[in-house]
C-alpha cells in the first residue's frame, strides 16, 4: 500500500485482524484518524488551505493529498480534512488562527465514523454490490471522493488507488457495512 497517495494517513489498524482476506479482495480496518468537518466561504479557502498544509479542492468530488494531510470535497462549501490522530490540536488551532473573524465552521468529527480499506482486483465489484455508482477508472479516477449509500447506510467512498478504496461509515453503522461486505464477498469464494 506504500505507493498509494496519503499512504502515511490511511493505514491499517495494526491491532485489528483483517475483516476479510481473499486473494481477490481484502478488507482491513483503518487506524484512527483526525477528521475535521470544515465549512467556509470561497474567500477563506486559500488561507485555510495554507494553514492546513494542502489546498482545498474546489472541483466537485475530488481530493488533494500530501503524505500526512488530505482534503476531501464534500459539497460546494464543505470539506472533510484528514490528518494523523496526534495532529488534531495542531491542525485545529492552525486553521482557527488563520481564519480569525471570518465566518466558518471547523468541527472535530474524528469519532463520528470508522473507516475500512477495501483493496484488490474485485474491490470495485464488491462495493457495487451495494452502491449504485460507476467505479470504472474513467468516471471514478483515483482521488475521487463521494458520499453515497451502501445498501441502507450512508457511506463515504474515497478511491486511493486503482484497486483501493476507503469506505467510511458512522461508527454504529460500521458493523452493518462491514458485515454486508463480507457476506457479499462469499460469492467470490464460491466460484
Amino acid at each position, binding site marked *: 500500500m506504500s505507493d498509494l497517495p496519503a499512504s502515511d494517513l490511511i493505514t491499517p489498524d495494526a491491532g485489528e485482524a483483517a475483516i476479510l482476506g481473499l486473494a481477490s479482495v481484502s478488507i482491513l480496518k483503518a487506524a484512527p484518524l483526525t477528521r475535521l468537518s470544515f465549512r467556509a466561504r470561497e474567500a477563506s479557502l486559500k488561507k485555510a488551505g495554507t494553514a492546513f498544509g494542502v489546498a482545498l479542492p474546489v472541483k466537485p468530488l475530488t481530493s488533494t493529498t500530501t503524505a500526512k494531510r488530505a482534503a476531501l470535497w464534500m459539497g*460546494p462549501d464543505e470539506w472533510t480534512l484528514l490528518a494523523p490522530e496526534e495532529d488534531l490540536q495542531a491542525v485545529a488551532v492552525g486553521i482557527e488562527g488563520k481564519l480569525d473573524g471570518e465566518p466558518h465552521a471547523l468541527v472535530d468529527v474524528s469519532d463520528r465514523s470508522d473507516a475500512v480499506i477495501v483493496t484488490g482486483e474485485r474491490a470495485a465489484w464488491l462495493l457495487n454490490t451495494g452502491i449504485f*455508482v460507476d467505479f470504472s477508472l474513467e468516471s471514478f479516477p483515483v482521488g475521487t471522493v463521494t458520499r453515497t449509500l451502501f445498501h441502507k447506510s450512508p457511506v463515504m467512498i474515497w478511491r486511493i488507488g486503482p484497486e483501493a478504496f476507503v469506505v467510511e461509515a458512522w461508527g454504529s453503522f460500521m458493523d452493518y457495512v462491514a458485515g454486508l461486505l463480507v457476506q457479499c464477498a462469499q460469492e467470490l469464494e464460491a466460484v
Partner: protein
Amino acid sequence: MLLIYCPYCQIERAEIEFRCGGEAHIARPSDPEKATDDDWVEFLYMRSNTKGIAAERWRHIHGCGRFFNAVRDTVSDEFLKVYKTGEAKPDLEAIAREAGK
C-alpha cells in the same frame, strides 16, 4: 433506475441519494412582523400540487447534501431541467413546449 443530475456534484446519481423538498420558489414573508395569519397559511400550507410540469426543490442528501431546484413532469417523473438554488425560476411553459408536452 431514475438518475438525477446534481448541479453541485455535476454528476448523475441514483434517485435513492435524493429527497424531494416540495414546491420551489415559495418565498417566506419578508417582514414576519407584518404578515397576517392568512399570509402564513398561504406560505406554510398552500401548494399548487401541479399535475404536469412543476418546479420543485430537491436535496442531494446522500451526496453533497445541498438543496437545488428541478423542473419535473409530475406525471411521467421525467426531469426536464435542474438548476442551483438562488437561480431564477425558468419559464415552465417554454420547457413544456420544448419537451412536447
